[in-house]
């Protein structure tokens, strides 16, 4: 992050921060269990679970077969009847196999039963491109799940939030879907010790500026901050909002920023059309903040294609820092 690092602040990687949250949860609440493919002795596909199985045993850190649908279903049933499962998908793309249980069961049971039950389920989805893993291991599908009433969908972008939002998700009585960008797993940052929560549904202003609002999610927050640093030297002062939660979206923080700057760029890795940026844009267009706009809204999202394998092509299908720079210069000059 752009904040200056002070030496006494403890740093952890994003993956370590998640592990610490799970460790705290397992240690303090006997209802918490971890489920997922190869999360036991292997430690998880991205080594997020690490050695927790040795500390808590195989009843609490459960390796599941490669059965996303069944695993998700068992997690829903366990949550419905009193446990607090954290279910890890190896890659968020595999959620497609489990959509029935997530969308028709987890999201709807409370409603269908008139509020008689609760599904306090946490699901973790390693997401996003940049690893050369091609079309079936690189998608950003948060908008799919964000479209389902009954689910909360979050995208922490820092180690501190990754820990705090996971603990907040465990406190939540409803299903919370956490999208973790794979490129962020090794990113280090300050993580407070002990137990704390980062509220779900609240965006974070990562940088204050008066000229252009950049509303970004997940890894794109870091690209937006990097672009904002360069833009500052050109005299363009950006407000960078880390959306953090896709559903429920923090309307007030976004609208306040737009009222201040009069210019909005949405940056997100999911497919641009019908994506998170469409919702942010509509939210602004439907509000009084629309009257403050001095330029059309710009969306920078994933291209209308699957994620390709070739590294250069892979970079080309998601927004990069130069794309943000160009959009911000144009919007600031009124050239859009």
């Amino acid at each position: 992050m752009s904040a200056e690092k002070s030496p006494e602040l403890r740093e952890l990687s994003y993956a370590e921060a998640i592990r610490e949250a799970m460790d705290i949860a397992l240690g303090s609440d006997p209802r918490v269990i971890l489920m997922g493919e190869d999360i036991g002795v292997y430690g998880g596909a991205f080594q997020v679970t690490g050695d927790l199985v040795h500390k808590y045993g195989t009843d609490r850190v459960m390796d599941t077969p490669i059965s996303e649908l069944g695993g998700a279903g068992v997690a829903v049933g366990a949550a419905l009847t009193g446990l607090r499962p954290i279910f890890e998908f190896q890659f968020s793309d595999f959620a497609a196999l489990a959509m029935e249980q997530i969308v028709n069961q987890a999201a709807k049971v409370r409603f269908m039963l008139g509020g008689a039950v609760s599904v306090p389920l946490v699901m973790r989805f390693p997401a996003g491109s940049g690893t050369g893993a091609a079309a079936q291991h690189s998608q950003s599908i948060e908008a799919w799940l964000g479209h389902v009433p009954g689910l909360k969908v979050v995208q922490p972008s820092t180690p501190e939030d990754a820990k705090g939002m996971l603990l907040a998700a465990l406190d939540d009585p409803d299903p919370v879907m956490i999208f973790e960008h794979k490129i962020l797993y090794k990113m280090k940052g300050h993580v407070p010790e002990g137990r704390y929560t980062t509220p779900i549904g609240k965006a974070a202003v990562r940088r204050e500026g008066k000229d252009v609002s950049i509303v970004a999610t997940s890894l794109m927050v870091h690209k937006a901050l990097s672009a904002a640093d360069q833009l500052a030297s050109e005299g363009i002062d950006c407000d960078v909002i880390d959306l953090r939660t896709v559903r429920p979206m923090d309307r007030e923080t976004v609208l306040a920023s737009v009222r201040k700057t009069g210019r909005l760029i949405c940056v997100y890795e999911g497919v641009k059309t019908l994506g998170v940026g469409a919702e942010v844009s509509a939210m602004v267009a439907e509000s009084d903040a629309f009257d403050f706009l001095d330029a059309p809204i710009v969306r920078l999202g994933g291209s209308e294609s699957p994620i390709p394998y070739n590294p250069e092509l892979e970079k080309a299908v998601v927004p990069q820092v130069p794309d943000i720079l160009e959009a911000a210069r144009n919007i600031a000059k009124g050239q859009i």
Partner: protein
Amino acid sequence: MSASDNKHNREDYLRMYRQMVRIRTFEDNANQLYLSAKMPGLTHMYSGEEAVAVGICEALTDSDRITSTHRGHGHCVAKGADFQAMFCELLGKEEGYCRGKGGSMHIADQSHGNLGANAIVGGSMGIATGSALRAKLQKSDDVTVCFFGDGATAQGLLYEVMNMAALWNLPVIYACENNGYSEYTATAEIAAGSITDRARAFGIEAFEVDGQDVLAVNELTRELTGRCRRGEGPFFIELQTYRYHGHHVGDINREYYRPKAEEKDWKESRDPIEKFTQWLTGEGIASTDELEAMKAEISDDAASAVDYALKAKYPETHEVDMHVFAD
């Protein structure tokens, strides 16, 4: 039918009889509500399959859980639900089990351990298995029964969760109600090989039982719930049964997929309530008059519950935003 110690178990037998008649009576009333356009949506009748739900649920306690299906009224009644809240739910009323939000296909009753009906064929198999995982991890001795039909055996979810249940020795009983038809298609056309052998392939002990014989179903289930409580689960039961109505209440002209003679034969020679009536009277456990009086009393109960539900109020429309989330 066979059972020992007849007199001793008189109360149990009469309760089973009562529950079977309650299901049949509930369904007759629900069918009328639908046909007279007083009930929205669609509904699937359990009539003909009463011995399955009752034989199984009478072997369970209120702490034991079940998951149910789109054809779920029978499970709900058998697990202890009351007519009034059920009819209110079918009619979309505020006092229904789901405040009118679930209807026939999502009817549930947490107080008696009915986790809910499910309108996705096979959709509750994961929930039942997860409930059993919870029981094992929390060292609770309850058992979960997962009801589903022969049609649901074609869903992949069943095999994913049976694998996990077998690996982890979960206290769950998969109860396949084979009524011979997967919606509008004969089961023989959609199910290859043996259904029970599929469970056996996972090392799960599997049983076939006459689903029209309430005592046989009950005896087997009592044995298997006991074994589940001792950590010997999971188990699989295939129950041969028959649905008297079509797939749903609107499926009336169905000779193109199911012959009338077949329906007649099951109704006249294998009706579960009639079979049990003959046994109860033959064994001297109850007289015909007693059983008829019980039927009349249940019929009156149902009529007043329907009457109450028809007059009950609908939820306020602002409730549509409620129960999506806890807050």
